[in-house]
């Protein structure tokens, strides 16, 4: 759809008050301005950009680069806007995992459910770590649709590198993830948990998990922005999805190998492998989820790239229908 021969842009903003020869109106004194020129040729037609994937990914990369400053501005805007009108400020970033963890720890102590497996460390730390990762997964998964919905007006009216919205979205996911991870420090100290050295591996795995979730989110974004059913369905399915992910209970290697139902559940749940792997490495230094985790880790980047392509291609189709509602 868009072919851009790489361009050079000159920007000048000096206004010099000299009379222009070619003024629209005789006798009207108009200043001379430096015009921003480029030799870029832009072509719009009905062809699909994906026909030339190499060119398309080059354009995506170029737009990520040219959208970096806008992404940063919008990230700062959202962050400042988010907490300027609150009393508790940043505390709100910490609250969801604390609240969720508190609920499940309470229910466990009431004997509402069994945790399964042997647990050497504090239940609170176990659930909190899982919750932080789960929240991050869900945030990343919902991010593409969220940035589109939040910036509808801008997308429908202005041409700017759309990838900058993904930068904002990913930035916010990472920021929240970092803030929440800080919670682990007091929790580890309080409950006397010593993190395993393998925690260093947990970080890249968590990052891959974010890319993977964002990739999935970008793949469903087009349908989600056309049909609100998707968002409603995710809203309803989320608690169930969380419960099928071993966050408040344990799935041991033994269960994974010998219980076909458990292993089916794990294989069908894209949230589970990377999340559990990262959590287990942080807390125990080993995990029964290495194999499924490895598979998804290899898939994460291709899924993310595929998501980028779908995200880019679908935006004009979505913009066309934005005025409809």
């Amino acid at each position, binding site marked *: 759809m868009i072919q851009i021969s790489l361009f050079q842009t000159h920007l000048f903003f000096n206004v010099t008050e000299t009379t222009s020869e070619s003024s629209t109106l005789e006798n009207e004194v108009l200043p001379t301005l430096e015009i921003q020129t480029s030799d870029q040729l832009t072509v719009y037609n009905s062809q*699909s950009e994906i026909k030339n994937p190499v060119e398309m990914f080059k354009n995506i990369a170029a737009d990520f680069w040219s959208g970096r400053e806008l992404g940063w501005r919008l990230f700062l805007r959202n962050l400042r*806007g988010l907490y300027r009108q609150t009393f508790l400020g940043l505390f709100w970033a910490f609250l969801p995992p604390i609240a969720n963890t508190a609920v499940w720890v309470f229910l466990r102590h009431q004997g509402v459910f069994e945790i399964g497996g042997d647990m050497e460390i504090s239940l609170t730390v176990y659930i909190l770590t899982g919750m932080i990762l789960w929240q991050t997964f869900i945030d990343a998964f919902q991010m593409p649709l969220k940035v589109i919905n939040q910036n509808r007006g801008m997308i429908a009216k*202005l041409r700017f590198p759309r990838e900058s919205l993904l930068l904002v979205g990913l930035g916010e996911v990472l920021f929240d993830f970092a803030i929440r991870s800080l919670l682990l420090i007091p929790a580890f100290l309080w409950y006397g948990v010593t993190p395993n050295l393998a925690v260093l591996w947990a970080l890249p795995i968590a990052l891959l998990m974010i890319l993977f979730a964002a990739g999935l989110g970008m793949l469903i974004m087009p349908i989600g922005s056309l049909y609100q059913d998707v968002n409603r369905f995710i809203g309803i399915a989320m608690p169930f999805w969380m419960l099928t992910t071993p966050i408040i209970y344990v799935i041991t290697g033994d269960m994974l190998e010998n219980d076909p139902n458990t292993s089916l559940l794990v294989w069908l749940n894209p949230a589970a492998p990377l999340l559990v792997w990262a959590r287990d490495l942080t807390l125990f230094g080993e995990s029964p989820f290495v194999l499924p985790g490895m598979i998804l880790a290899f898939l994460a980047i291709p899924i993310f790239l595929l998501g980028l392509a779908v995200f880019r291609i679908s935006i004009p189709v979505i913009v*066309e229908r934005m005025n409809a509602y």
Partner: protein
Amino acid sequence: MSENSDNSKLILNVEDVSKVFCRNLKLAMRYGLYDLGKEIVGRGEDRAEGQLRPGEFYSIRNASFKIEPGECVALIGPNGAGKSTMLKMINGLIKPDRGEIRINGKIGALIELGTGFNPILSGRENVYINAAVLGMSKREVDEVYDEIVDFAELHDVMEAPVKTYSSGMRIRLGFSVAANLRPQLLLIDEVLAVGDVGFRMKCFKHLRTLVSNGVSIILVTHAIGMLQRVATRSVVFNRGRIVHDGELDAGCAVYEEILGASERIRTERLQQKTREAEIAEVTVVNKNDEPQTEFQTNDSLKIRILLKSKKKIENARVIVALNSPSIGTVSSVSTAYQEVRFDVDPAVHPDGRMLTLSFQELPLLLGAYHFNISLFGPETTEFFHRRSGCGNFRIIGPPIDVYGMGIHGILKVDHEWKLD
């Protein structure tokens, strides 16, 4: 596509572009999903001409036009004619379904002022956000920040949250940021009808400055009265088709004719039911009683109105309003005012009663005009018929001048200057 030497220096070349939309929400979503699927598997291609799915219509059909560097072109037309769709395609927001748009050079758009403003952040912070949305870097904004504040005349309030600004202040700030967009092709959509007169004049002057510096501008607006301040050419859209491409004044007249015609259709539709009496015919003639539709300022002109009735109307009244689609009624006259009393009686005038209204030396200036004519009985409540947008005519000369070197407006008023 042939790439001849003429086209290579064009800033914009729109060639045979069509765009299809769907008004049915459910179908639009379904088609969206289908089109998306086709795009993703790389099978998006030109739509066959004239092939529509149920519920679809052409928002733009077979539109072609070119713009050269330093031209300021107005896209005009009634609501839903396709102007904004065209602008969106040129801006790359949506894709054409057929045809091709080629842009040579840097493009910028002034579509909505102050996009990205966050109301709880300060004016200063929002300048940086808005500028970033428009593609400027922080360093570039740093350099022109003072200029932006000067242009907006908002020195005292830059540190206050934007939500404490009046809407006019917000728009001024938005325009001032956007004024630093100096691309080779600038798209402007309906943003000039804002702000107070002084600021508006400043905006127009800014646009003239851009044009004089070689920037091409495409303007979409309904306020055609203002166009003469900056545009030189117009492209008129009606129902997705380009019906005029050329001189601005002629384009405005074509547009006003379209507006007049749609008003006529609207009132005709309202009055479909059988009526006892009607204004059967309206003809504009010159002083020699020959039908004519193009006049010069200060020409004399008559309209001949044929009234028909099934029963006798005693003391009928006729009201004639001379209208300009862009400003409304210029003048309204009635038979009652000059105490012209007459009956419409089918027994006396079986072919209808003819009434002639003469205007001596009509001082109208360049533009398209029409009449709205109503037929009443002696009482205000005795309404028989109204014809809107009839008797269309145009004043085609002499030229007007909006830069203060001649006269412009609707009327040529008798006047005299005197030096003490």
